[in-house]
């Protein structure tokens, strides 16, 4: 279950084996009849359910319209080959292309909507498609459906017989499962999972979150379309009632039952839900009730699905750590310290209704310096970072980064320009391992190693070395303590070789020795030429690392200058420090 995608042949032998097995099995199967139909149904459904693995399992976006895309693929083959006399595969390609475009359009809805609102949009889409299939009689044949759909012939090969057609479906299913399994450990797959686990942090790590979601919907629709097209050839007859809302629910149940985070879960779930009613038929009148109860019990006791249950036990095995991989030097892009301004903020204001969280703040960060931003709770420090990194739109003001006006750029473009950050209330990708979290950071567009999978792993390991977390590389990040999750966040930011790093309370939750170590870490980073803007309440740390300090209170700047001056400023003592500095240590 490698987290690493560096090996281009990963899983290929297993795929070859699966294809061979499929070919053997299809000749063992009956050439026609009820049993063959059941297997064909399971096989074509499984391809569509794999689509749900992408959109829901990987990307975390709920779609209750998979039967609609299944129907579009089916009608593409049906109408294309019967009414227009196209080759089966040409008709399938047209159906899949239409499904892809409509999938992208449905994905556009995720720009403004999430959660159950997005789910409702997908349900509406499903209902509209059912109406179109039923009522556009001149094109779709309406409720009568499309009959006598041919099976494909290509290059002299005929898939007319049950054996051959089943073989075709099984091979496509194996290819689909393989591709989607590989997708999970690819850059795009990690981006999807990052969006699922924490959209804000994904954007701040350079991922185009909206584009990723739209693409996930598109891929899901393609798989729905392929499954549907093969389904049309399986039964040679399709009608609108096979692609309605209840079928979308069935497909969703299959995905959740099998385990939505893996294509193997999709296969298991589909097979089980197709076969279970057959096995239970001997129960006669009560069989539907038993079927329903079985599904509910599996859901309750195995919330991650059947495959999720298996996978969790596999994960527990200790995995080797890549000691052999030589770390790639960090921070290869940073420049020598200078007096040049790297981040310049002028007149920045952010109002939430009547609340003036920021009220005209100026701040200038010099290249290679450590600049601290301090102030009482609620004085606007985190709002400042959120506006600078693009999570909030400013009410007024201008932000310039490395000579470029970034005031109106979205978060991922600011990250790609070299502006990385950590969050006050830790935002890690909880469903992913420590290494995968950091790889997301390393893969930002604009990093010098993008597109070299092996280098991405090396850079991620180097970043973990930097924060001394390599031993935990394969742990799920959610199992780490609070302080260690902070280090993962810092490593994720560092792996992208940023120009400037914004740290929002990195010392919170660390004990005093760990704070001293963090101080050393920050000085090492500064030694490499990284520019740092840090927010923290620990004055020992701030004094230890900062070259400049800016103090905010009620959204305004009340002091600015060197630590010696600022920490003795009476206004700062009154508003923030409470007691003059260096008295506290006398306690010790």
């Amino acid at each position: 279950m490698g987290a690493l995608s560096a090996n281009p042949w990963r899983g290929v032998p297993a795929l070859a084996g699966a294809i061979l097995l499929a070919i053997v099995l299809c000749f063992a199967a009956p050439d026609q009849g009820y049993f063959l139909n059941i297997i064909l149904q399971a096989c074509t459904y499984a391809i569509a359910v794999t689509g749900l693995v992408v959109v829901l399992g990987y990307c975390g976006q709920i779609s209750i319209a998979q039967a609609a895309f299944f129907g579009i693929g089916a009608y593409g083959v049906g109408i294309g080959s019967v009414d227009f006399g196209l080759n089966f595969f040409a008709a399938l390609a047209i159906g899949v292309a239409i499904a892809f475009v409509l999938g992208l359009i449905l994905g556009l809805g995720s720009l403004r909507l999430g959660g159950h609102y997005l789910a409702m949009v997908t349900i509406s889409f499903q209902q509209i498609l059912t109406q179109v299939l039923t009522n556009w009689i001149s094109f779709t044949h309406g409720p009568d459906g499309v009959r006598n759909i041919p099976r494909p012939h290509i290059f002299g090969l005929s898939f007319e017989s049950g054996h051959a057609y089943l073989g075709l479906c099984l091979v496509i299913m194996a290819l689909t499962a393989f591709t989607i399994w590989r997708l999970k450990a690819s850059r795009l797959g990690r981006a999807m999972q990052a969006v699922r686990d924490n959209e804000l942090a994904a954007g701040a790590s350079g991922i185009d979150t909206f584009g990723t979601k739209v693409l996930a919907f598109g891929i899901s629709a393609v798989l729905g379309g392929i499954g549907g097209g093969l389904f049309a050839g399986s039964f040679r007859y399709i009608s609108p009632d096979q692609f309605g809302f209840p079928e979308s629910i069935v497909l969703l149940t299959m995905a959740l039952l099998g385990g939505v985070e893996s294509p193997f879960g999709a296969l298991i779930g589909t097979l089980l839900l197709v076969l279970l009613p057959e096995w239970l038929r001997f129960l006669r009148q009560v069989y539907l009730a038993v079927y329903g109860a079985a599904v509910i019990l599996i859901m309750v006791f195995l919330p991650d699905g059947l495959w999720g249950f298996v996978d969790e036990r596999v994960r527990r095995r200790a995995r080797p750590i890549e000691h052999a991989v030589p770390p790639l030097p960090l921070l290869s892009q940073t420049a020598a310290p200078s007096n040049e301004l790297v981040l310049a903020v002028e007149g920045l204001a952010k109002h939430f209704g009547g609340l003036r969280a920021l009220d005209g703040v100026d701040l200038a960060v010099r290249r290679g310096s450590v600049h601290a931003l301090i102030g009482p709770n609620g004085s606007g420090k985190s709002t400042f970072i959120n506006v600078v990194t693009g999570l909030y739109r400013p009410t007024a003001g201008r932000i310039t980064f490395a000579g470029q006006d970034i005031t109106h750029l979205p978060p991922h473009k600011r990250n790609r320009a070299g502006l990385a950050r950590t969050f006050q209330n830790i935002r890690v990708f909880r469903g992913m391992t420590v290494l995968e979290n950091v790889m997301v950071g390393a893969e930002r567009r604009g990093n010098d190693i993008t597109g070299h999978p092996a280098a991405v792993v090396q850079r991620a390991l180097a970043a973990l070395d930097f924060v001394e977390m390599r031993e935990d590389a394969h742990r799920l990040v959610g199992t780490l303590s609070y302080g260690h999750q902070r280090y993962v966040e810092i490593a994720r930011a560092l792996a992208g070789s940023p120009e400037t790093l914004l740290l929002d309370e990195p010392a919170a939750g660390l004990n005093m020795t760990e704070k001293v170590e963090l101080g050393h870490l920050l000085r090492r980073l500064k030694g490499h030429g990284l520019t740092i803007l840090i927010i923290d309440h620990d004055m020992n740390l701030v004094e230890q690392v900062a070259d400049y300090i800016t103090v905010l209170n009620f959204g305004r700047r009340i002091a600015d200058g060197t630590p010696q001056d600022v920490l003795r400023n009476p206004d700062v003592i009154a508003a923030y420090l409470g007691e003059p500095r260096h008295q506290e240590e006398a306690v010790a």
Partner: protein
Amino acid sequence: MKLLEISGLVARYGAADVLKGLDITVEEGEIVTLLGSNGAGKSTTLRAISGLVPNVSGNISFAGKPILGLKPEAIVRLGISHVPEGRRIFPGLTVRDNILLGGSNRKGVSRRTLEADADEMLGFFTDLGRLQHALGWTLSGGQLQMVAVARGLMARPRLLLLDEPSLGLAPLIVQQVFRIVADIRARGTTVLLVEQNAHMALSVADRGYVLETGHLLVQGAPADLWSNPQVRAAYLGGLAAAS
């Protein structure tokens, strides 16, 4: 009198033991602090006392009564209130309502008494008085932390479990919080405090325990812990911070 007695406490998350046989006692009226590095098991100890850790074994008794295996709500009713790490505030409720909710375990107490207690809390944390009608989500991180502490105190517990109350607070507010911790004890509440800010914690505590990867490293009076070179080096910032 021993208010809380923990012996041989073992806690497990997944495959790993987080606590490996921990013994801790807290006398009535004491402030006891748990120190240690990240992942040492400090928060897990508090969560185990509150009944929030599923896989635990050993003994925990409160006022002479074994409480291990009781449900969290039953433990709260016995008089143990837990202020968790990381500010679990209801975002859609006002500050005042969030604080009032902390008193929901107190059966048979009039609304007026609860309101008066809430006023007292808002007086304690002067910043919150100004914000009492603000919704939870509009607060800054430090303000949320203050609401969480105030909510925990509303339960009028015999034993208050505080998990990193100073996390993310400005120095001025940290000083306030520790003054309040001392006030809480002066009013008769026993406090078990997990804290990374060892300076502050040891300045108010009567005794301290230092944990290391699930077991006890050393325990004693604040002065002894301060002068213990092993503890200083590992958890108190070493000599570098003291100079």
